[in-house]
């Protein structure tokens, strides 16, 4: 019995499968996010942070996704290099810009959230710094892929970079935390004290789940687009090949 990934390895089957799945995921994502935000905005404001705590409903899911998407990319990269899974590169390539976008969203919302508390738009605390470096890792992946014209080479080199990144990421996180314990004993962005009230937790989980589904929907859509783009390119290359062969024959 084939595993799911094996069965979906065929691009055509993947297109079919994702095509049917996509509307459901998108709908579920929209629903969860709507519910989450509604509950979030109807809950009483946090006694410490006031209304601004509501940004948490976008910030926390974005931050979680920033990390999770990098893991998706790392897994896809592993699948490409070790198993040569045909859709692995499509998955990685589609996920990188999405990851960068959610990371940027996390940074911006984190900055806006912190402004009323810190008085500045940015502090170099452990979490924000780690997310910023993660953003650079995403940019690096995009820049590397863009710099290479040979797509096969680009896919494999980017995969190597992604794997190097995922190995370095815990080390980077550890080093940033380490630096922070030296400079800043306090931590920021603590939500409502040491425990989170249930009324804040439920909408948070809802939006987190909703955002995750949103990413899944966007990822699937981006993968579908990438597969279509490759098909177009394959057709164009076939044209070139035909012309080349015709010319060789004419030279005989």
């Amino acid at each position, binding site marked *: 019995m084939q595993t799911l990934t094996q069965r979906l390895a065929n691009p055509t089957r993947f297109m079919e499968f994702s095509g049917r799945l996509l509307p459901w995921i998108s709908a579920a994502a929209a629903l969860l996010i709507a519910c989450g935000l509604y509950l979030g905005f109807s809950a009483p404001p946090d006694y410490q942070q006031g209304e601004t705590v509501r940004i948490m409903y976008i910030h926390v899911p974005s931050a979680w996704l920033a990390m999770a998407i990098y893991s998706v990319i790392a897994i896809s990269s592993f699948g490409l290099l070790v198993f040569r899974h045909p859709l692995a590169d499509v998955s990685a390539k589609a996920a990188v810009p999405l990851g960068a976008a959610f990371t940027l969203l996390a940074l911006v919302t984190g900055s806006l959230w912190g402004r009323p508390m810190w008085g500045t738009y940015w502090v170099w605390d452990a979490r924000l710094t780690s997310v910023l470096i993660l953003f650079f890792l995403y940019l690096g992946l995009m*820049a590397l892929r863009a710099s290479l014209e040979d797509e096969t080479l680009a896919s494999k080199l980017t995969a190597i970079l992604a794997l190097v990144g995922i190995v370095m990421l815990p080390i980077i996180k550890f080093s940033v935390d380490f630096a922070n314990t030296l400079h800043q004993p306090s931590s920021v962005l603590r939500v409502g004290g040491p425990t989170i009230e249930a009324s804040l937790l439920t909408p948070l989980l809802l939006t987190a789940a909703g955002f995750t589904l949103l990413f899944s929907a966007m990822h699937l859509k981006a993968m579908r687009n990438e597969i279509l783009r490759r098909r177009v390119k394959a057709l164009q290359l076939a044209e070139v090949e035909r012309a080349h062969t015709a010319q060789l024959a004419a030279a005989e």
Partner: protein
Amino acid sequence: MTAFFALLKRDLLLAVRQGGALGTALGFYMLVVTLLPLGLGADMNLLSRIAPGVLWIALLLAALLSLGRIFSSDYEDGTLDILATGTLPMELVVTSKSLAHWLSTGIPLALMAPILGLLLNLDLDAYPVLVATMLLGTPAVSFIGAVGAALTLRTYRGGLLIALLVLPLYVPTLIFGMAAVNGLLGVSGTSSALLILGALSLASVVLCPLAAAAALRLQMQ
């Protein structure tokens, strides 16, 4: 093993003969350090406080720019292809070349730091500490940078791309390097930073060649 040392010897010989590369790196190092007081004002107190950090960061930049070419010069004259046909696995080729870079560029940069420290009114106590931590941390710089050099072999465009890829990976080296300096000076931090820095260097010596060799093999197709 003779092959490993033959390659190492050759690269060191070339580094000496092509003296320009080291000179440029040292010159760049000096220039960046000079820009600091020009940009921040010559307040000697301020400069002496930021001196260790500045010297570390400028070293990273200078090393990084000199790393971009460790593989490409061999790639361009066809030597890399032939190195790949030796009995030495590609990983050891990378190790040898990274080691050559550390010996020919990393160490000189680290030794230059105290001289530049004069420009920044670096604390006298900090001199030996700074050099020691840099010597301990520069292997990581050379080896991690080699991965970047391997990835950008064909598309090296003046150091921007390799900087974007490698500088985030240098963050732990920078943080632990600085923490080690501060730890040894008793300013803050713990002595564990020095050990972690050493571990980082050792780990990069072992692991980075794997990634770099994989990237090089792909580029040689």
